[in-house]
């Protein structure tokens, strides 16, 4: 059957695959025929993702990518790949007045420097092949403001700007680089409770399509970027937000 979105024959690395968008991306990529390499910090939850992968030939690597040595270890364990979904990320809701370097640094290390240097190492070791696709999970928070989100938004804004330069630098090798900007997706990212359930419900009502996203719906956008369907698309972002930022 004709399917330009197929990932058959491709090996895809997914970071932050122990939960949420990362887990869904790994599971959906496997369903589309890819062999996936998944990384995450939590061994137990990463195993759960691994157990849910269709097909065989998949690999899991337990590592904290913000740690230099573990980043190197991850690259050493990674086979040649055709695509990467840089998904691992954290958030912290804190008004600007209260932020400190320690928090900000942790967020930048995990959300920005880790995926950037993972991508660089994969390139240097030629594990990221010609014609491959690099995808970053960004956020609508770079242009649709959430109060208390300054650190998170800055880390994602850095990604968006970085992607554009990288897209041009890697175009010669026909490596495409893009990012996805999800609206609020039902994951555990709000578990700290700073934003309570009632507030979340009020926000959900503001989504024209009537609800928050499912992790799978972001995974499908990643599949578009990873597949041949987006062969002529690079340096761009795709907003997947149920229409939230239209209003």
């Amino acid at each position, binding site marked *: 059957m004709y399917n330009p979105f197929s990932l058959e024959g491709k090996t895809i690395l997914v970071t932050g695959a122990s939960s949420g968008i990362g887990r869904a991306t790994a599971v959906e990529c496997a369903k589309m025929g890819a062999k996936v390499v998944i990384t995450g910090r939590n061994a137990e939850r990463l195993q759960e993702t691994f157990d849910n992968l269709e097909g065989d030939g998949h690999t899991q690597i337990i590592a904290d990518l913000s740690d230099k040595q573990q980043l190197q270890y991850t690259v050493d364990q990674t086979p040649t790949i055709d695509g990467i979904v840089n998904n691992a990320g954290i958030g912290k809701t*804190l*008004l600007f*007045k*209260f932020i400190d370097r320690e928090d900000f640094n942790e967020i930048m290390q995990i959300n920005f420097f880790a995926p950037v240097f993972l991508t660089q190492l994969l390139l240097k070791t030629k594990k990221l092949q010609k014609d491959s696709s690099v995808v970053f999970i960004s956020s609508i928070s770079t242009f649709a403001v959430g*109060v208390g989100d300054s650190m998170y938004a800055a880390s994602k804004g850095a990604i968006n700007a970085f992607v554009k330069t990288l897209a041009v630098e890697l175009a010669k090798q026909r490596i495409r680089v893009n990012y996805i900007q999800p609206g609020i997706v039902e994951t555990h990212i709000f578990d700290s409770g*700073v934003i*309570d359930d*009632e*507030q979340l419900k009020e926000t959900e009502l503001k989504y024209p399509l009537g609800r928050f996203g499912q992790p799978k719906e972001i995974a499908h956008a990643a599949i578009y970027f990873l597949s041949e369907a987006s062969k002529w698309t690079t340096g761009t972002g795709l907003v997947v937000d149920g229409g939230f930022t239209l209003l």
Partner: protein
Amino acid sequence: MELKEFVQNFASQFDDTEESVFQPETKFKDLEEWSSISALSIIAMADEEYNVKLKGLDIRSAVTIEDLYNAVKSKI
């Protein structure tokens, strides 16, 4: 943790409301200056001053400043 000191820390999160307005029995959500930003401010203040992680729900269920003081006290 003293109630008086907590009320002061609470008051210092506001810019336009007279300090004398802030009393243990003050119904803080009735203040003109109160907003969702104030809520985040109080959560961050409790973390910074008392190392207590308040949740949005704690703010929602409190009526007076003293209610919040008790919420923080119970988590120390």
